[in-house]
């Protein structure tokens, strides 16, 4: 293993790990805000506080998740200088401002207002308190949009010039950078993927409580968890729909800007008219023809170009074209990884949508999910797995999009091999990778334990509303009450 491989592995591990918590934070912030809005509307009309209690439960999951997302996200901010300093020098003019704007615009909003939301419940007027969680939700979306613009530059460099003197990229127009056509498709795709992840999680929480039999069917808690499970299922379904539509657009854009990536996704060696999409395929390593394949005729052409008979460029022609354009070298990404991560992304994600649809069907109208129900058994089985499905699909998506761009760091502009910090030693990367694995592993165990405990406790009671007198001076009650959490 070369130092480049090890450094890439480290980036992959830390990024994928971080990206388990990001989609959950994005969607749980949105759900908390939506539920709290519904709560405010309902209680203003004299209704009960079901939505409020649900928003508190989802908000607690958000707090736990957000903490891990923040501390692992900080690592990402440093990675470019730590392991990829040559890349940071080349790309700094474009990437640096993007990171800085994200930090100034979004991170501060999220961190400060989440603190205000959590601790400010009994200190802020209800509407202001609701506003704080909406600010968090909007902050996460801004954050995603800006950081995806930075990634989109790596997929499809736009809005830059190359400095003749230094050979480095120079930022042209920030607006154009943000509105990169890849970003315009990647942002909705990623955001919808995040909504699926959170949707599947809260749906699983709801279904588990319904089937556990802890609450009687006539209790408020039972009704609340029924609402939560259906809310989560709808979110998964809606997210899945948007993922499919935006993924379709994204696929067509990528075919334009990175034809090699889509050819790798299908392991399409030869340029083909009316190219098929294989659902499953097996080829011995090194062979360019599958020995077994289950194919949908013309579907790859449709995915790539919107027509069942369009021509899709094959790997071999692209390799020749790139060798002529960029000089001799291997421009074909790692085919098995590209092929399978693309399929698993779609398959695993769609499976989550199916489970969500099944749950909506089983619990349609006022039907109650009972443990002895035929489909309920299946649902209960899937509950443990369910939250993992969209997360896995998200991960496969990133594995696909990043590995199938290789050997480029910035497509057509800067090679991955040229990006590694020149002085870096193998021992340093190995030591840090070991340390990351250890600490991140421990964090994951603790997070899962806490999330389980939180969910098992059931529906929390809402703390009392804000005291009317906004008094100064010490106050034992408000600190020791809701915020005994610290």
């Amino acid at each position, binding site marked *: 293993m070369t130092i480049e491989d090890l450094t890439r592995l480290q980036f992959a591990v830390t990024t994928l790990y971080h990206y388990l918590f990001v989609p959950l934070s994005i969607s749980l912030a949105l759900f908390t805000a939506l539920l709290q809005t519904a709560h405010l509307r309902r209680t203003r009309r004299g209704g009960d506080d079901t939505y409020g209690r649900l928003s508190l439960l989802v908000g*607690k999951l958000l707090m736990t998740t957000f*903490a891990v997302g923040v501390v692992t996200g900080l690592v990402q901010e440093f990675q470019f200088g*730590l392991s990829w300093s040559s890349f940071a020098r080349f790309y700094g003019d474009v990437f640096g*401002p993007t990171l*800085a704007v994200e930090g100034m615009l979004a991170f501060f909003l999220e961190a400060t207002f989440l603190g205000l939301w959590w*601790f400010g419940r009994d200190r802020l007027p209800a509407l202001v308190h609701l506003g704080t969680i909406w600010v968090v939700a909007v902050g996460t979306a801004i954050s995603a949009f800006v950081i995806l613009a930075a990634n989109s530059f790596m997929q499809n460099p736009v809005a830059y010039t190359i400095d003749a003197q230094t050979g480095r990229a120079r930022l042209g127009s920030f607006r154009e950078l943000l509105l990169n056509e890849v970003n315009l498709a990647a942002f909705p795709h990623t955001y919808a993927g995040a909504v699926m992840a959170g949707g599947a999680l809260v749906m699983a929480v709801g279904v588990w409580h319904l089937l556990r039999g802890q609450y009687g069917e006539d209790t408020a808690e039972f009704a609340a968890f029924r609402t939560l499970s259906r809310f989560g299922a709808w979110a998964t379904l809606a997210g899945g729909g948007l993922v499919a539509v935006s993924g379709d657009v994204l696929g067509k854009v990528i075919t334009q800007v990175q034809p090699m990536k889509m050819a790798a996704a299908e392991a399409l060696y030869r340029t083909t008219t009316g190219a098929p999409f294989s659902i499953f395929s097996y080829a011995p390593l090194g062979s360019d023809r599958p020995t077994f394949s289950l194919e949908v005729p013309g579907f790859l052409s449709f995915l790539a170009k919107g027509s069942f008979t369009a021509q899709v460029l094959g790997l071999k022609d692209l390799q020749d074209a790139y060798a002529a354009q960029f000089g001799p070298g291997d421009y074909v990404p790692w085919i098995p990884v590209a092929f399978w991560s693309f399929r698993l992304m779609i398959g695993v994600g769609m499976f989550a949508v199916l489970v969500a649809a099944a749950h909506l069907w089983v619990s349609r109208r006022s039907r109650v999910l009972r443990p002895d129900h035929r489909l309920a058994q299946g649902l209960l089985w899937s509950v443990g797995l369910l939250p993992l499905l969209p997360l896995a699909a998200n991960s496969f998506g990133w594995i696909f999009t990043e590995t199938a761009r290789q050997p480029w760091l910035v497509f057509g502009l800067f090679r991955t091999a040229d990006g590694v910090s020149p002085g870096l*030693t193998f021992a340093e990367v190995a030591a840090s990778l070991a340390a990351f694995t250890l600490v991140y592993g421990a964090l994951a165990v603790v997070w899962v334990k806490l999330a389980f405990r939180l969910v098992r406790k059931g529906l929390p009671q809402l703390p009392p509303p804000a005291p009317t007198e906004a008094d100064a001076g010490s106050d034992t009650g408000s600190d020791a009450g809701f915020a005994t959490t610290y």
Partner: protein
Amino acid sequence: MDLPVLWFGIAVLAWVLFFVLEGFDFGVGFLGPLLGRTEAERGAAVRTVGPVWDGNEVWLVAAIGVTFAAFPDWYAALLSGLYLPMIALLLLLAVRGVAIEFRGKHDTARWRDRCDAALALSSLLLAGTWGAVLGVLVSGLALSPGGEVQTGGWLGGLGRSLDPLLAPWAVLGGFAGVLLTTVHGATFLALRTTGVLRQRARRLTVATAPALLVIALALFIAAGHAVVAAAAALLALAAVAAWRRAEVVAFAATTLAVAGSVVAVFTAHLDLGAGTGAWVLLRSTLGASGDVTLGAAAASPGALHLITVAGVVVLPGVIAYQAWSYWVFRRRVTSGPVRPAARRPAPAGRPAR
């Protein structure tokens, strides 16, 4: 005004805010378990930073982001040259943040003890390591003309980025970091708590500030930096103020002392007589050709212009809403008994938090 100079100022400001704000977070992190003898007292100590630590930590994101955006070469040289110490800091920050957030998410004494231990140890190591890294900014890195550290690879290469921490300035910085955070954390705790916690924090300030004063004076004699002398004077003021029970003054004094020390470190190699382009941001121990200078490290005018527009619009807003957040949580935190159920009627079977 020259944009690179403006952004050097903003970068230093962001670093100063990070060290001032997280300085007391770190201090509270390891002082809490030390000064809080009961579970309730320790909890109260952690609650003083609970709502704000995350927002404070984002100043690190801002500082590193601004450094990257305005001076890509400075960012690249500093981080790749201090690879392992930086990784250690990131992991310690991860442990620290999660220990604070997760402390109250499970309600057993053993869990809280463990979180307190993780919080205290990580905060202490963070204070020391950040201090050492600031010391490296004074002593410099073995940067080759390409801006990379490629020497000192003892222990099979592990030593490359650990070597700078063995420099005298770095060791001194480590100790100074721990002591300064102790005083700063103590004045913050005295300001934000009541009862015994407040009293003990005040006493700790009076006890430790003089020790730091001696170090600061020694530093002033060694380095001759005027800002260091000012920091020393402020520490003296903090000790007197704490003794006279003027907690606001004591906290303001340690705040300015931390800020002054950080400014002194970042401006250690600026030759104000030379042109601004020749200002040394990061010194090379291998000779002037490896120095990272303001002129050479600055991003393109277009990039600087962009972040100037964004920064001028956004940063005042950030400072405003963070200040508002401190205002919302201005009440002192007490470790007194939980107010009885009269105010919050808890139905039976209410899940414990």
